């Protein structure tokens, strides 16, 4: 842990002081400056003025601070540099090298997966001296992100790359970008309207790949439980779909039950507690998220069921998850990489250059779709190789069964 602890305590203190005295964060203290926009940002009820200030210097300072904690060990560590490959150096548009600004509107900064996506954006931008990026935090709020896109347009950015909070809610903002003639590249979660390009991975086929690892490890026979991501969220729906596809081909595997792990650790503990009481035999856990998996492992150990040898298959692709795979806590980890921001930047630059995007195809929504190939599930065999390429700068919990 190399966090500047004193600075952090200071931030906390300064932020509380700011709140109590209700004055602006204009102090010379660096902590104060960063405290104000983030804290207001989290209310989700921001005024346009606050959004503007975030688009200014303070917001960018935030991004730098976030990225300073990143783990990306260099451009070559990015998993998708072979998709729309691009030479390092200035970007030429019609024989000139104009200053280009790309606006990046992120869902929110509140999850390391999202922060990692910012890292990959930054990594690509840094390779091109005449390209700059403005990054905004959508606060997981449709209204905020809509304002962000409008602010980017008002600033006159050359292209917008966004990862929307919600597919439907961002349609009007996306339409305004398209109407303004600004290339719009959408990452990870689609916007159901005309855009230049949607770039995404498939949670269905990725989960199918992980489920196949499970079927193989169980020799096609066994009883499993499923811990989903937040019920109703599209990645959870898709990961369940992938599992169902694999189970259709594996009649020997019985799915005992399914429950909502909400992507996080705490609900999974209670689910697994209860299932271990209910089922004398569970052969494997299929979980949509590493966090939930760590919670379930805790419940397994507390119930004294470590010797049962319950296998564990999960998703997310964090560096910590890969570590848990290499230590044997998980048998496979679906590698849903956040490091796709660089592809978005390259696509935006290519569009600005007037190039066609190779492999982008029309699909059942307006615009074009570039489907990324699935990265291989991370298993004990390839965990070492992938550990430096997972997202997030945190350690996994120790194996409670070790």
């Amino acid at each position: 842990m190399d966090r500047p602890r004193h600075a952090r305590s200071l931030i906390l203190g300064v932020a509380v002081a700011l709140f109590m005295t209700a004055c602006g964060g204009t102090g010379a203290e660096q902590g104060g400056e960063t405290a104000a926009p983030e804290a207001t940002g989290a209310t989700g009820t921001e005024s346009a003025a606050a959004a503007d200030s975030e688009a200014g210097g303070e917001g960018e300072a935030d991004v730098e601070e976030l990225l300073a904690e990143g783990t990306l060990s260099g451009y070559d560590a990015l998993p998708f540099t072979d998709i729309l490959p691009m030479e390092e150096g200035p970007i030429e548009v019609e024989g000139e090298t104009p200053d280009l600004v790309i606006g990046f509107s992120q869902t929110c900064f509140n999850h390391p997966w999202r922060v990692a996506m910012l890292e990959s954006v930054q990594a690509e931008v840094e390779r091109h001296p005449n390209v700059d990026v403005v990054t905004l935090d959508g606060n997981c709020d449709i209204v905020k992100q809509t304002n962000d896109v409008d602010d980017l347009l008002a600033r006159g950015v050359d292209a917008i790359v966004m990862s929307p909070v919600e597919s439907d809610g961002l349609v009007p903002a996306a339409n305004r970008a398209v109407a303004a003639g600004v290339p719009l590249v959408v990452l990870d979660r689609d916007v159901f309207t005309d855009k230049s390009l949607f770039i995404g991975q498939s949670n269905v086929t990725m989960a199918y790949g992980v489920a196949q690892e499970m079927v193989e490890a169980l020799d096609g026979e066994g009883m499993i439980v499923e811990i989903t991501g937040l019920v109703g969220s599209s990645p959870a729906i898709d990961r369940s779909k992938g599992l169902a596809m694999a189970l259709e081909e594996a009649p020997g595997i019985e799915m005992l039950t399914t429950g909502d792990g909400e992507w996080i650790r705490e609900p999974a503990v209670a689910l697994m507690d209860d299932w271990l009481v209910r089922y004398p035999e569970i052969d494997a856990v299929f979980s949509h998220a590493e966090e939930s998996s760590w919670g379930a492992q805790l419940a397994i150990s507390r119930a004294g069921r470590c010797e049962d040898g319950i296998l564990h298959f999960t998703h997310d692709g964090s560096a910590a998850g890969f570590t848990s795979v290499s230590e044997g806590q998980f048998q496979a980890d679906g590698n849903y990489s956040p490091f796709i921001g660089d592809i978005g930047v390259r696509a935006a630059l290519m569009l600005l250059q007037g190039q066609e995007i190779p492999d982008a195809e029309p699909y059942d929504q307006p615009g074009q779709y570039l489907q990324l190939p699935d990265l291989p599930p991370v298993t004990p065999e390839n965990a070492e190789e992938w550990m430096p390429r997972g997202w997030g700068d945190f350690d996994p919990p120790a194996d409670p069964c070790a």
Partner: protein
Amino acid sequence: MTDTAAERTDAVPTGTASTGGGSGEFLRKWGVLVALILLLVVSATMSDRFLSLPNLLNVLRQIAIVGVLAIGMTFVIITAGIDLSAGSVLAVAAVVTADMVNSNGPLAAVLVAVLVGAGLGLVNGLGVTLGGVQPFIMTLGMLAFARGLAFLYTGGQPIPTTDETFLAIGNGRLFGIPNPALIFLALLVAAYFVLRHTTFGRAVYAVGSNDEAARLSGISVRRVRTTVYVISGATAGIAGLLYASQLGVGTPIAGEAFELDAIAATVVGGTSLFGGQGTVFGTFLGAAILGVLSNILNLTGVNPFVQRLFRGALIVAAVMLQRKDARGR
């Protein structure tokens, strides 16, 4: 348990308690307990594993975090206030305590969790009393603000901890009972004592029943109001500590919407949102009802979509049961 009945009448100085009698009065007082017993009986018939000791201990541990939040919430709601920030304060405490245990060891972490929670609670309390902001709005502001602090403090990353002493707080057992459950029960006893047997406790009820009358009878209404938010903050701090030590991680998204579960437990337990009425024993029953429900739905494999329906319906039904009888028929 007869004490709770006594408390309702002698701790509510302005007579807002129902004056109804007969079976209505009985159900008003004991409705929550009856509901819990019914639920236990139904659960036992639905799953033969339900009544096993490991399962019951699981339930007790599962309700501990929200239960601890609900204890503080009970104080606040008795004064006719509300604390919407409890889940966010939990998150701040969880991330700070996880960070602190890594740098300064478990004892410091425990103290800091409680202090951070109490400190944010103090801000709530002062905002309500000196700032004149309505509790709903003050704590709604803190809900967002404290969550922002948690994100800011961590940069959005979870802070894991592997300190064994610290993890033992959340995962160890004493006499076979999980520590979080013991801490929850100990806090219940302490809160019961404070509400039932101290001048402060009586003042809490008095302020909630009629703060003007309380003021005229010499109670410092502001101090009492401020203190209940500090208590709620402190219990949120303890809950954050339990969260981090059970899960081995302080994450800024910890405890989202837990305040709503705590409010549900408190209200199901018979505490009135209008103030002046309520007991922590009721809150324990309320938390137990919600915990048992969730447990039996998992044990019987009810679809997660449907689980939410049950939960919502049960909250309303449990409160209606008491309300109907409060009319005294």
